[in-house]
C-alpha cells in the first residue's frame, strides 16, 4: 500500500497553473526524490502534502491527495490541518532553529502539543537528538543557543525538532542547499538512517544527491510530472526525452 497517492492534482496561484494533472504514489519507508529545474513546481508539490500552500493567498488546489487512504485536500477545519502537519513534517531549505537553546528547540513541539513533560520530555529530547546523530556532540551543550551551532548541526537540529513530534512522513525541501559537500553527505547518511522509520520525500536541485539517496525519483517540468519511477531506472534508462536531457545536463 502506498503511503501517499496523488491523482489529477492541479494547483493554481491566481492565474498561474503551477501543478498540472500530477498523479503519483509514494512508497512507505522509502526516499522519493523530486527533481527538476527551478520553478517546475517540485516545492509546490511538496507543500501540497502538508497543506503549507494554504497560507498563501490566491492558491486553489483541485484533485485528490490521499495519505493512508484519507483525502487530505478535503480537510476544511484548521484542526484537521494541524493534525495532518504533525503527521507530515517538513524540513526547510535554510536551517531555521528558533533563537532558543538546543534543548528548547527540540522540546518546542512536544511542549506545545503537550506530548511529554519533566523527565519524559528530557528523555524524548535525548532520543530525538540521538536519532539525528547530534547527541554525542551536544549532550553537554543542551543549554547553548541553537544559533551557536554550525549550519549542518542546525539542520540536524531542525530534523530532531521535527521527529520529536513523531511524524510519519518527512518532507525535505532542498535541505542541503545551504550546506557544504561534506555536510551534505552527512545529512544524506542521516536520511538513509531515517528512512527505516519514516517515509521521506526530498526536493533537490542536486541530481547526484537524488541518484545517491533516493529509491524513487520524479522528474518535473513546467508543472507537470514528466516521469516517475525507480531511481536506478530514471537515471540509466529514462523514457521521456525531457528527462534524459535534464539528467544529462542539457538544461536546468
Amino acid at each position, binding site marked *: 500500500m502506498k503511503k501517499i497517492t496523488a491523482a489529477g492534482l492541479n494547483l493554481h496561484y491566481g492565474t498561474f497553473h503551477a501543478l498540472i494533472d500530477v498523479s503519483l504514489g509514494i512508497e512507505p519507508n522509502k526516499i522519493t526524490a523530486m527533481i527538476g529545474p527551478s520553478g517546475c513546481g517540485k516545492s509546490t508539490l511538496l507543500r501540497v502534502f502538508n497543506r503549507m500552500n494554504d497560507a498563501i493567498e490566491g492558491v486553489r488546489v483541485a484533485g485528490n491527495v490521499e495519505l493512508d487512504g484519507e483525502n487530505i485536500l478535503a480537510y476544511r477545519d484548521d484542526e484537521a490541518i*494541524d493534525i495532518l502537519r504533525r503527521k507530515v513534517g517538513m524540513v526547510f531549505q535554510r536551517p*531555521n532553529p*528558533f533563537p532558543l537553546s538546543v534543548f528548547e528547540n527540540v522540546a518546542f513541539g512536544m511542549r506545545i502539543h503537550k506530548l511529554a513533560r519533566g523527565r519524559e520530555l528530557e528523555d524524548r529530547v535525548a532520543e530525538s537528538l540521538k536519532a539525528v546523530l547530534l547527541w554525542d556532540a551536544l549532550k553537554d551543550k543542551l543549554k547553548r543557543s541553537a544559533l551557536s551551532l554550525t549550519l549542518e548541526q542546525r539542520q540536524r537540529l531542525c530534523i530532531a525538532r521535527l521527529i520529536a*513530534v513523531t511524524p510519519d512522513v518527512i518532507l525535505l525541501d532542498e535541505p542541503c542547499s545551504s550546506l557544504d559537500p561534506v555536510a551534505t553527505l552527512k545529512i544524506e547518511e542521516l536520511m538513509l538512517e531515517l528512512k527505516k522509520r519514516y517515509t521521506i520525500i526530498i526536493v533537490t536541485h542536486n541530481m547526484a544527491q537524488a541518484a545517491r539517496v533516493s529509491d524513487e525519483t520524479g522528474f518535473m517540468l513546467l508543472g507537470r510530472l514528466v516521469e516517475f519511477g525507480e531511481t536506478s531506472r530514471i537515471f540509466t534508462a529514462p523514457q521521456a526525452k525531457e528527462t534524459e536531457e535534464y539528467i544529462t545536463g542539457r538544461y536546468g
Partner: protein
Amino acid sequence: MKSRTAQRIAFAVLLAVSCVVFLPVVSIFVILVKEGGGALTPEFLFTMPSEGMRSGGILPAIIGTLLIVVCAIAVTLPVGVLAAIYLNEYAKDNLLTRVIRLAIVNLAGVPSVVFGLFGLALFVMMLNLGVSVIAGALTLSIMELPSIITTSRNALSSVPASFREVSLSLGVSRWRTIRHVVLPNAVPGILTGAILSLARIAGETAPILFTAAAFYVTRLPHSLSDQVMALPYHLYIISTQIPNMPSKLTYGTALTLVLLVFLMSLAAIILRIIFRRRKKW
C-alpha cells in the same frame, strides 16, 4: 568645479544641517540646567507646593503625571498590541482592514487639543467620569493608540517569517504560533515602543487640560477618579498664571519634566540594547 570639491561641499552642508538638529536639544538642556538645576533639591521633588505654589515642591504634579501616564499605557498597550496582532497576523487585505488602516493614520493626525475636547465630551461628561486621572488617561490612551499599533506591528513583522512557517509546519495552530513564537520575539520591540510612547505622553498638555489636570490640589490623589496636578499643565500655570513666580522654580519644573521624559527614553534605549544583544538572527 571638480567632482571631489563638490562632494566635499555637499557633505559639509549635510553635516551642518544635521548639527542644526542636534543644537536645540543641547541648548534646551544647557538653559534648563543653568536656570533650574539649582532648584532640583529633594525638598523640591518630594514635598507639596506652598505659598500659592511660589515655593515648596512639585510632588503632586510628578505623582499626577506618573499616574496618568501609567494608566494610559495600561489601557492603550493591550488594545494596541491586540489590534496589531490582528492587522499583522490575521487580517487579509480587504475593505475593512483598509478602513482600519486609514483610521489609524488619521487618528495619528488629529491635533492633541482636539483629543482634549473629545475626552471632555466623552469621558468627562457623557460617561460621567468627571475631571479625573482615569478620564485623562483614557484620552491619552486613544491619542497614543496609533503609535502603539504602528510600533507593535513593526515589532511583529520583524519576526522572521520562517519562525511562523516552522511552527505551523509542526502542526502548531496559528494562535499558538503567535502566542509562543511570534509574540515572545516581538516583545522587545513592543516594549521599546511602549516606553517611548510613555515618554511622549508624559509631556502632553492639551489632552489632559480639560480631562484630568487641576490648577492646584491640596492633597495627593487617593483614587483614579481624583483630579490631579500634572507636570506639563503645572508648568503652563506657573509660567503664565502666577505673578511673581521665582523663575528658578519654573525652570526647575521644566527640567524635572524633561529629565523624566529623558529617563524613560533612556530606559527604552537600554532595553533595546539588552534585547538586541540577545537576539542573533
